[in-house]
């Protein structure tokens, strides 16, 4: 019998509350949503898993990471390469080296391989990244993003570059991604409240002080980094297993900023913040995109305004940073909003 601390118990309560919200949104979409809306909500859930993967490292170690979309891409491509049937790969990747076009695996095994590859890569890179401090670490993650993208574009014989890598069987539907997102929420929340998570957060507040108390900062950062990468790989797999086609473009700067804005708006220090920010921006942007097309509102024909969604996204980042640098949630998790103030 594992004995949980008070913060871990309240963490489980918080995770359960968030899970209830995720289930409610998912069920409502399944019953009332059109095909297009289901697709939209699916991609919101995939982005939620990305933001959670980002939160594990960025929220606890408080080092800005810009390479998350690259890890998502690695997971997506690795799973896609394994799971796509041979006959399709023979057509789409005729020049694939190392016999990559000569086999195909079942989805579960493919996902496991993709996660393992991403984790190993993240571990090797993490050995260097965790030793750097704020801006230096951010630059190295930026370098990782650029390098991974360049490899995707350059090895067209494996990744097809900016062209679509097609023929991935559709394995997941909305119910699956809701389940996986809930799992990710629980993992992130338990990590945050675990001994490791608390020590890591302490080291972010005061690096020298935490080290003096015996916190092994590099080791903890590495654990959070690899755990984050695994969650990102899962997000990539969910993306590939639903859409059926992937290309290099969605795993670059635009996606990096989109997901970063989600985490910042909600508040990177908490899991609740990650969920809130993702939902606000996913559904908010859809509203702005509607305005972009120049709709007729209240009898007034609005002009077409390409770029409005970009302006909104940038403005969200700037305003959050100016008025609430810790995001909407700050240091509060969902259950503290309901709890009576007894402490």
């Amino acid at each position: 019998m594992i004995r949980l601390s008070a913060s871990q118990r309240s963490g489980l309560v918080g995770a359960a509350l968030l899970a209830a919200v995720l289930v409610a949104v998912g069920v409502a979409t399944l019953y009332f949503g059109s095909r297009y809306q289901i697709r939209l909500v699916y991609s919101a859930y995939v982005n939620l898993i990305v933001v959670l993967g980002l939160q594990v490292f960025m929220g606890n170690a408080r080092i800005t990471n810009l390479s998350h979309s690259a890890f998502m891409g690695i997971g997506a491509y690795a799973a896609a390469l394994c799971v796509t049937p041979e006959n399709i790969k023979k057509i789409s990747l005729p020049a694939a080296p190392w016999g990559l076009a000569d086999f195909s695996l079942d989805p579960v095994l493919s996902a496991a391989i993709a996660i393992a590859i991403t984790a190993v890569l993240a571990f090797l890179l993490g050995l260097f990244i965790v030793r750097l401090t704020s801006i230096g670490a951010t630059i190295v993650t930026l370098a990782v993003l650029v390098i991974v993208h360049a490899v995707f574009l350059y090895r067209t014989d494996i990744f097809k570059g900016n062209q679509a890598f097609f023929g991935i069987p559709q394995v997941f539907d909305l119910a699956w991604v809701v389940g996986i997102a809930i799992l990710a929420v629980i993992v992130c929340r338990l990590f945050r409240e675990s001994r490791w998570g608390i020590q890591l957060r302490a080291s972010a507040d005061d690096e020298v002080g935490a080290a003096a108390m015996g916190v092994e900062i590099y080791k903890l950062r590495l654990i959070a980094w690899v755990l984050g990468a695994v969650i990102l790989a899962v997000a990539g797999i969910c993306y590939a297993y639903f859409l059926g086609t992937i290309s290099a473009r969605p795993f670059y700067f635009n996606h990096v900023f989109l997901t970063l804005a989600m985490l910042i708006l909600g508040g990177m220090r908490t899991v609740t913040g990650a969920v809130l920010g993702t939902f606000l921006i996913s559904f908010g942007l859809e509203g702005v995109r509607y305005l972009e097309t120049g709709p007729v509102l209240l009898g007034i024909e609005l002009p077409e305004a390409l770029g409005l969604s970009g302006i909104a996204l940038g403005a969200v980042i700037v305003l959050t940073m100016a008025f609430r640098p810790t995001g909407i949630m700050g240091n509060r998790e969902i259950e503290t909003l309901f709890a009576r103030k007894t402490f």
Partner: protein
Amino acid sequence: MEYVIQQTLNALSFGAEYALLALGLAIVFSIMGLVNFAHGEIIAVGGYTMVAFASLAIGNPVIVMAGAIIAAMLASLTLERVAFRPVRKADPTTGLLTAFGVSIVLQNIFLMFVSPRPIAVTSLYFLDWPIEIAGIRLASLQVFETLTTIVVIVALMLFLRRTVLGLAVRAASLDFEMVRLTGIKANRVFAMAFLISGLLAGLACIFIMARRGSVDPHLGFDPVLKAFVACVVGGFGSLPGAVLGGFLLGAVEVAMLVMLPQSLGGMTDAFVFMIVALILIWRPDGILSPAVEKGDKL
């Protein structure tokens, strides 16, 4: 031998452009710890000013160039007032993210109000003609660029060492509160730093536009990404570091272009970034930055 000289000169002119941009980033960072990613959009403001002059049928190159520089300086000042003042005291990460946000907003404003497509600007083509000295072929633009960077470095050095405001700017990067105690207005120091940064962006804009001949909303993003890297490698916040980092990056880039086989052409950026990452792993705070103490200062 000629080939080596040729490539060295190429590296020098590449490096000059990066150094010019990196100085613009470093002078702001040294004072307020802000990584100004919106620097690239200030370059784009200069570019769109040239478009505006062209549509008004003003072709006089002096007016066009001066206009672009002044527009860039004004844009830089405006950003300081509107966007960066609220995050003045925040940590570098907050500033970095704010600057990213500003950069996205500006790019999309260009996209929405001007055009998502590149617009041709031909008024500066006259700056670029081929020269040949002793068998070495160069573009006049490369010479102008290297000379301008040298002049800028000397002028900046004189300003920072010989004038009161320059001294205040240098002192502010060490201890801002002390500068304020001596009676110098904080806002003036910040405005000065952003004005210089805008001036450097305007100069860089002229060279970039003379080479590319067109402006689009994403004009400044790639050059500033490289300049940012140059700054970090040289030692963030250190002005000599920015210059060193700029020239080093130019050298690495030309070396990669020369040494990598043709088949790896698409991988130049990947290799450049890899070398940069390795430098940072070797010296996490950059080459020319002093060691930082992490504990509380009394």
